[in-house]
Every structure is written in C-alpha cells, then in structure tokens.
C-alpha cells in the first residue's frame, strides 16, 4: 500500500519537474516547481521524518516559490517600462 502511494507520488513529482522545465508560462512553471517540493515533503512524512518534512514544506514550497515570484514580477516590471 505504502509502496503504491510512494510510486504514485514519485510519478507526480517527475511530472511536476518536467512541467516546471517545459512550461511556456513562467508563473505556472514556478507553481509546478513548488508542487514538486510539496510532494517531496509528503514523502518525507511517509518515511517518518517529520522534521525534514516541515522544513521542506515551509522553505521549498512556501518561501522559495514566493521569492521566485517576486523576482519574476520585478523582471516583468523592468520589461514593461524600459529605462534610458
């Protein structure tokens, strides 16, 4: 049962990673890479490592995603109004 769940989660992780690389829409790609971290934290929880799972969920899928989104929005802001 656990094995089946782990395999399903692993396939979801690979799918998320591929989406993060190949998505044309950058915001969607960032969300996909955040979901990879979220599934990883779930796997840590199943493997009985709650400490690591908490760190992965908070840093990997929370803060990193937000920092990427900030960086992306700043790059866009620069593109919209070119400075001379």
């Amino acid at each position, binding site marked *: 049962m656990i094995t089946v769940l782990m395999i399903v989660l692993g396939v979801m992780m690979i799918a998320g990673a591929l989406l993060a690389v190949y998505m044309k829409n950058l915001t969607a790609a960032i969300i996909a890479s955040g979901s990879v971290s979220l599934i990883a934290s779930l796997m840590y929880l199943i493997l009985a490592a*709650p*400490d690591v799972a*908490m*760190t992965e969920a*908070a*840093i990997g899928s*929370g*803060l990193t995603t*937000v*920092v990427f989104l*900030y*960086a992306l929005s*700043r790059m866009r*802001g*620069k593109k919209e109004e070119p400075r001379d």
Partner: protein
Amino acid sequence: MISRWIAFIALILTALVLLPFVTMPVSEELTETAAYYLEKGPEELGAANLVTSIIVTYRGLDTLGEVAVLFFATTGVGLLLGKMGAREDKIHPASEILSTGASLLYPILLLFGAYIFIHGHLTPGGGFQGGVVIATGFLLLLLSQRVKKVNHTVMNLLESLSGAAYVGIGAAGLFLAGGFLDNRILPLGEFGRLFSAGAIPLIYVLVGLKVGTELSAILENMKGREPV
C-alpha cells in the same frame, strides 16, 4: 543529433555504474554512533525529541555553521538590494479578501511559529522550522500591505543579539559543562516537560528568532525595492 545520442548513451552508462550503490542492501543493524545516540541520548540530555538532541547538542557545531550560512546569505541579499531606491508609487492596493484573510491569519501563524520553536525539544520541528513559519506570517503582512516599512534597526538588533547569545551559550558550555554547546549548563529537569533538556529550549528560541528575522529581511528586501 549524433552528439545527443552520445550524451544519452553516456547517461545510461553512468546510471549502470551507479546502480550497485542504489541496490546495495542496507545494513539492518545500527552503526555504533547511532546506537549510542539512541541509548544514551534521552538520559544524557533529557530531550524527548531525539532529532533535536542530535542537531542541537551532539552535532551542535554543524547547526551553528548552518545558521552562519543563512546569515551570510541574508547579508548578501541586503548588500545587493539595499542600495536600490524604495518603490513607493505603483503598488496595487491589496484585495479585500487578501487583507481580511491576512489580518485573521498572521497572529495565528506567529503563535504557531513560536509554539514550534519553544517545543522543539519535545515535538518535531525546532528553531529553523518555527522561524520559517514566522517569516510566512510576515510575508502575509507584506502582501496585504498592512506593513509598509520595516524598522531595520530593531530587526538587525534582534538578529545580532540572538546570534551572539547562541554563541555565548555555546561558550558557556565550555566552562560550566562538558564542551562547546553542551546543554547541561542548566538543570535537565523532568523528562518530557516544557522546562527540561537544559539549554536546548533556550538555544532553539534564539535560533527561531534569528531565522525568523533573517528570512523576513530577505522577503522585505525582495519586495520593497526596485532598481534605480
């Protein structure tokens, strides 16, 4: 096209070389160090969460190094982004849902973060995780624009003081107990209670404050500024 095939074949060959490491049978017995930690950890350090006693005391120096790495990263971000002018004009106002939800959630998030690092020696989680949860609460405040500017003096002071106190407690272990970052400078207390495990709760509170202020400072630097 050919170079792509060569790269593909090289990848498969590397995978075949590394395969024995993956399929290697894992030893069923604990190593000597792990067995020592498992048997002696609870009575020696008094921390109910064994992971904590390893992270903070047995391998406390590693944790100090990690906190130092985070400190340097924050300093770098502040140095790179701090010189840029503050962005004032074109901030869109936050929506009603976001500002209401943020004002409802952020006290709970701050409380939860504090709970995690105060109970670090009893339950999973500790200073680092609690600090990140606090930074998440701070992020909500920034997004909903309930906080426009952060008092950098107070945050820098809090961060520096907690970092220095962490090293100070570690050095106190040198003189009063067995060695650097030894937690037995305070009485161990009753196993499993909040006031137990010597200096571990104190160290985790300091680490939590430090990580929380550092990550909040990174988020604030990322959001509030724009290249001049």
